[in-house]
C-alpha cells in the first residue's frame, strides 16, 4: 500500500479529529507536500462541509416506528438538541467513511498496488523577520514553553473565512552545520552585526568566531567583513577590541575592506587599545607584503607624527611604515 493510500485512509479520521497527534501531524505534512492528496483532502473537506449544511429532515412517523421496531429497542427520545448534533456528526462521518471506503475498494480492485518511493522534499528553513505560515503547516503541538508575545488578530477580508494570528515567538533554536556552510556564516554575521538585538551575546560570539574561524580552512570573507563592520560601528569598546584582535589573528582577513576598517579604527577610535591592535594588525599586513595604497600610507604617517597620540601607537605606526616598500 502506498503512502498516499495510507494517508487517504486517515483523512476521515482527520476530519473527525480522531487521529493521535503524531499521526495527525504526519498526515498534514503529507497533504502539504503531495498535490494529489491535497486535492483529495479538499474533496473530503468540501463533502464534510456540504453534509454539514444539509437540512435536517424529520422522518415520517410510520418510518420512525418501523425503524425502532426493527432494532427492537424501546428508545427513549433524546433531548432534541443533543440528538441532532450527534446524529449529524454520525451521519457525516458515516458518509465520508462510505465514500472513502468505496473509493479505496474501487481503486484496490481496479489496479495492483504499487509502492512508489516518494523522495521527501524538505524545504529550507529560513530565518526571517516576519513569516506568514498557513495553519496547516504549523504543528498543533507546542513544545516547551516558548515566549509568545505581541499577539494580535487579523481578519483582513471579512468575506474570506480565513483569519490571522500574529505574534512574536521566542524559542531556543540550534542550527548545526559546518563553519563554512553559508547559512552558518550568515547567521553568525547577523549575530555579530546586530548590536541592539543580541548585545550581551556579541562579545561571546566574537570569542567563538575567533576560535573557530582562525583555523585554516574555515576562513570566510563574510566573517571578516562582519568583524570589520563591528569594528567600524559597534559602540561597545570591549567588543571592538575583540573584533580587531580577531581580525589580526584570522587568516585571510587582508581584504581592502578590512584594511579600510583598520585604518578607520587607527585614525579615530577613542579607545587606545583598539588603535594599538589596529596598528599591530596593519604592521602584520605590511610585513606579510600586502600592498598599501597611498591613502593608507598617508594615514600611517599622520598617525606616526601626531603629537597627541599615544607614544606606543605612534611607534607602531612608524614600524609599520618601515616595513612597507611601496
Amino acid at each position, binding site marked *: 500500500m502506498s503512502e498516499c493510500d495510507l494517508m487517504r485512509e486517515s483523512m476521515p479520521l482527520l476530519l473527525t479529529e480522531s487521529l493521535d497527534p503524531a499521526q495527525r501531524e504526519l498526515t498534514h505534512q503529507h497533504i502539504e507536500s503531495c498535490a494529489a492528496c491535497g486535492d483529495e483532502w479538499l474533496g473530503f473537506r468540501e463533502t464534510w462541509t456540504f453534509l454539514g449544511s444539509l437540512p435536517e429532515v424529520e422522518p415520517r412517523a410510520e418510518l420512525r416506528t418501523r425503524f425502532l421496531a426493527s432494532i427492537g429497542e424501546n428508545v427513549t427520545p433524546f433531548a432534541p438538541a443533543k440528538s441532532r448534533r450527534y446524529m449529524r456528526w454520525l451521519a457525516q462521518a458515516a458518509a465520508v467513511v462510505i465514500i472513502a471506503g468505496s473509493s479505496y475498494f474501487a481503486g484496490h480492485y481496479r489496479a495492483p498496488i504499487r509502492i512508489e518511493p516518494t523522495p521527501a522534499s524538505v524545504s529550507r528553513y529560513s530565518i526571517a523577520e516576519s513569516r506568514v505560515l498557513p495553519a496547516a503547516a504549523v504543528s498543533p503541538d507546542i513544545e516547551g514553553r516558548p515566549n509568545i508575545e505581541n499577539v494580535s488578530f487579523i481578519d483582513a477580508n471579512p468575506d474570506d473565512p480565513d483569519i490571522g494570528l500574529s505574534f512574536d515567538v521566542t524559542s531556543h533554536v540550534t542550527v548545526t552545520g559546518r563553519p563554512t556552510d553559508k547559512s552558518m556564516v550568515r547567521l553568525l554575521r547577523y549575530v555579530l552585526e546586530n548590536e541592539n538585538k543580541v548585545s550581551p551575546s556579541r562579545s561571546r560570539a566574537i570569542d567563538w568566531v575567533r576560535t573557530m574561524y582562525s583555523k585554516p580552512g574555515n576562513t570566510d570573507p563574510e566573517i571578516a567583513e562582519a568583524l570589520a563592520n563591528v569594528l567600524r560601528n559597534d559602540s561597545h*569598546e*570591549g567588543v571592538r577590541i575583540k573584533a580587531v584582535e580577531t581580525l589580526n589573528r584570522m587568516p585571510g582577513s587582508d581584504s581592502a575592506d578590512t584594511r579600510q576598517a583598520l585604518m578607520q579604527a587607527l585614525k579615530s577610535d577613542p579607545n587606545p587599545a583598539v588603535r594599538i591592535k589596529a596598528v599591530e594588525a596593519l604592521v602584520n599586513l605590511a610585513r606579510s607584503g600586502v600592498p598599501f595604497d597611498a591613502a593608507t*600610507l598617508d594615514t600611517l604617517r599622520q598617525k606616526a607624527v601626531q603629537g597627541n597620540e599615544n607614544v606606543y601607537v605612534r611607534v607602531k*605606526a612608524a614600524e609599520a611604515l618601515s616595513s612597507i616598500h611601496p
Partner: protein
Amino acid sequence: MRTKTPLSCAAIALLISANAFAANVTITERLIKSLPLDVGDSVWIDNPVGNIEVVGSDTPGLVATVMRTITGVDQAALKEGSEQTVVSFEGDRNVRLIRTILPHVHSDKWTSSVSYTLRVPRTVQVKIASRISGRIRVANILGNVTVTTFTGAVILDGVVGSSLVETTNGKVFYLYRQKPTATAQVQAVNADIDVILPPDSTFNWIADTLRGDILTNLPARAEFIGNAFRGSVNGTGGPTITLQTLLGNIRVLGIGIDVRLVQNVRQTVAERRSESPLLRPSKRIQLPISGGPFDFSASIADVEVGEVRGWAHVVTAAGEIKLGTVYGDCVVTTNGGPLDLGDIMGTLTASTDAGDVQVRSAREGGRVSTAGGIIRVLYNGGPISLQSGGGDISVRQAAGSVNAETRSGDISITADSQQRTQKFQAHTQQGNISITVGPRFAADIDATVLTSRPDANAIRSDFNGLTIKREQVNGKTKIHATGKLNGGGERVELFAEEGDIHISNATASPVTMGPP
C-alpha cells in the same frame, strides 16, 4: 600650457640589454631637454620612482637630462611599460613642472624608473615630490627648497634658502657650506637626520625624536619641553632648524670639530631632570636574570627580563615590558604598550596608558590598570584591583579579593576552589559578568543589571536563594538580585550595564596554578 614629449621620438637609445640568464629585459633611454627659466622662477619635479638631482648654476635656463629605465619580463611587457611611463614637461617660464606620469595600477610584468638631473639657475625655487628614490640631491641653490618623499636619501648640499623636507624612511643629510641664514625643517618618521655646518653657526635648534638619540659636538644650551629638545647653538639668534624624526637619530655636527666631543643631549639633560622617562635614551633590554633589584627607565624600550632576584621598578614612555619571576615588589609603568608579567612574589603595581596586561601570578595582589586594553590575571593570592578604560577583565583563579572595573567589556572571575568565601566587586558599564565559584562558596550576593531590553532574563544563577526584582529606572530596566549563597559570607557585588550576569557553580579547579 602642457607639453608632452614622447620619449620615443626625442630620445637616443643608449642601451638595450638583455640578460641571457634571466628572463627580464631592460631598456634605458636618455633624453636631454633645454627650456627657458629665469632667475626667480620655480621648478617642480614630480617623479614617483627614481633619483633626482638638481644643481644650481650661474647659467640661465633649465637643462634636464632624463634617464628612463624600463624592465619587463618580455618584449611585450617592455613595450607596455615604455608606453605607460611618460615624461612630461609642463608649465611656463615662471613655473616649470617636470613629471613622470605612471598609471595608478599597472601590470606587474614591468617596472620603470626615471632619473632626472637638472641644471637650473641657482636662485630658483625647487619643489620635489617623490615616492621611492635612491637619492634626491639638491645642491647650490639660493632659493627655497621643498622635498617630499617616502623613502630614500635626501641630500641638501649648499642650500641657502628655506628648506622643508618630509620623508618617512631613509636618511636626510644637510650640508651647509656657509652659516645657516634661513629656516630649515625636517619631518621624518624612521629616517636619521644629519646636519653638518660651520662650527661658528648661530641658530635656534629644535630636535624631536622618540626613540633615537640627539647628538651634537656644538655648544648648545637647551631644555626639553615634552620630548622635544629646544635650544640655541653658539648663543641666541639666527634661524630655526627644526629636526623631527620619530625613530631615527639626530646629529648636528660642526665642520672640523673633533667627533669625540659628540654628546648625547638627551642624556646630559636627563641627568639634570630625570622625572620624565621621555628624556631617557631608548634601549632594548633582554636579560635572562637580574641578580638583584632591577631598576630601569627609558623613553622607548622593549624590556624583557627572565628573573629578577629582588624588587623590580620599570618605567618607560612606550614599549612592551615582559618580566618573568620577580622575587619582590614590582612596579611597572609605561605610557603605552602591553605588559606581560609572570610570577610576582611581592605586591604588584602595573599600569599602562594603552595596551593589554597579562599577569600570571600576583601572589600578594596589587593594582593593575590600563587606559584601554584587556587584563588577564591567572592567579591572585592577595587583594587585587583591576581597572580598564575599555576591555575585558578576567581572573582565572582568585584566592584573594578582586575589585574589577571596566568601562566596556566582559568581566570573568573564577574563585579558587579552596575558597569558602571571598569578596568580589565587578563593575562593567557595557558587558557581561561571569562569576564562577565552588559549590560550598558562601557569599552575600548583590547583583544588578541595567538594561534597555525589558524582556531580558539577565541574571542567572546556578545557586538557589536569590531574590530578583525588576523596576524601571530612567527608561531602562533594572534587574536586582540579592540573596545569600550557602548561608551568606563576604559580599559579592556585581553591576553590569547592557549585559548579563551569570553566577555559576564549578566543581573543578580551573587552572593548574597553585597558591604559594
